[in-house]
């Protein structure tokens, strides 16, 4: 469960988050929509313990990331814009290294399972530098799932993915969603968001201006607000 209350973050004189409130219940997938510069990535960085907020409170499964970052990172899997993988290590070496960082003692079977799941098992011994962006993104998703997190934070995970890989992503999010687990995902693709989400939140100028269940979403109104049309995915 994710609970964000009155979150404020500024970079110099520029306020990017201005008293943001948001919650994701256990078992829920919340999709964050918003224009560029709406501070979606900043919010995810704060939840991932990469950035400290100026004020407000954040709780992930009852733990404050600012105070107990290591505990939060044990239970959170993150996919950001950048794949965050070592270009001169192979896919398997990258995942092996991060598995070691997450404390997995015998990660080989887990790595094999995840590579198969993201359909990258045939590229396990290829250096990441030689993969396409979409393939790197898939490996990044496998890295985020290595330690069986209870929360997934996904920042536009569909970017660079082809149609097949997007289907895999949707399936993985669907499988991940279970009692006790939450997903918070940003996207510019309304269609993808509506397919995977339980609820949709709109972030504008540092605040959540709309948060409602998918069943209650006025798709036409949202479509008008965001450029990517339904059916474009």
């Amino acid at each position, binding site marked *: 469960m994710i609970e964000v209350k009155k979150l404020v973050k500024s970079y110099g004189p520029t306020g990017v988050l201005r008293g943001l409130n948001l919650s994701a219940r256990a078992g829920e997938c919340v999709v964050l929509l918003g224009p560029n510069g709406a501070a979606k990535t900043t919010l995810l*960085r704060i939840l*991932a*313990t*990469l*950035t*400290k907020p100026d004020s407000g409170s954040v709780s992930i499964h009852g733990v404050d990331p600012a105070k107990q970052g*290591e*505990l939060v*990172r*044990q*239970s*959170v899997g*993150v996919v*950001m814009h*950048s*794949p*965050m*993988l*070592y*270009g*001169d*290590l192979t896919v398997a*070496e990258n995942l092996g*290294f*991060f598995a*070691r*960082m*997450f*404390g*997995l*003692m*015998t*990660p080989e*079977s*887990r790595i094999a*399972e*995840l590579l*198969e*799941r993201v*359909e990258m098992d045939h590229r396990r011994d290829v250096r990441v530098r030689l993969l396409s962006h979409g393939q790197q993104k898939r490996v990044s998703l496998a*890295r985020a*799932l290595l*330690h*069986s997190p*209870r929360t997934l934070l996904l920042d536009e995970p569909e970017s660079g993915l082809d149609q097949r890989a997007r*289907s*895999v992503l949707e*399936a*993985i999010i669907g*499988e*991940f969603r279970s009692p006790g687990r939450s997903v918070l995902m940003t996207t510019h693709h309304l269609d993808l968001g509506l397919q995977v989400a339980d609820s949709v939140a709109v972030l504008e100028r540092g605040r959540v201006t709309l948060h409602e269940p998918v069943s209650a979403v006025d798709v036409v109104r949202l479509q008008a607000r965001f450029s990517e049309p339904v059916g474009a995915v």
Partner: protein
Amino acid sequence: MAESRIDESAAEQGSEAAPDNAGNEPGVPASASSSTSPSNLRASLGVIWAIARKDLLLEVRNRDVIVSIAGFVLLVFAIFTFAIDINDRDSARFVGPGVLWAGIAFAGVIGLNRAFALEMERDTLEGLMLTPVSRDLIFLGKALGNLLFLAISVAIALPVFAVLFNLVVFRFEMLAIAALTVIGFSSVGTMFAAMSVRVRAREIMLPLLFLPVIAPLLLAAIEATADLVAGDSWSEMSQWLQLAAAFDVVFVIISAVIFQFILED
């Protein structure tokens, strides 16, 4: 599409540290904290080595750092052999130790810059920060990697220095001087490299921050090496080695503490 669920084997993986009292579910990996219990200590050492080993593996594959350091040091030596009369044994003894350690310090700046630039290019440092490994272990892992790069570079540079300057440096004491100097260089250098890597003028910023701080260590290394090439006994150079050791203890701790705050956004 594969049919397996994404989390089904997680509980089989186990973790290095036993399920803890922090409320972790079975199968959820425990972090390698900096606690001092034997199992945690072993896990922490394993994490430090894994980070350093990863850096070494990357270096073996792209040879960016060691080639930069060793290449620059050898160039400095070559230039100084033209600039001074090294056939005059006294001037070689007088200038040689300074050339040796100043060359290694300047070359170290280049190598340290490169080592962190590589982590930033692909945002892999942030990837590392997303793991439950404590920031001080990340620092120690990175510092150990840089220490190994510097040690390899010094091992390449010393024989060349000995030949070019016609000085006897291969005594047991040289091992102590080199070890203490490289430890201090790598710990302070890792901290300042992390600090300067996010700024635009990092190539200038790192030497401006690094060189003044390591001045006492540089002085100790030069003076101890001068004693060594003069054939002085261990006791005569021990005051400089003590200074270097004290510098290392203080700055490894300070650097590890400051590093945590440097990484915060």
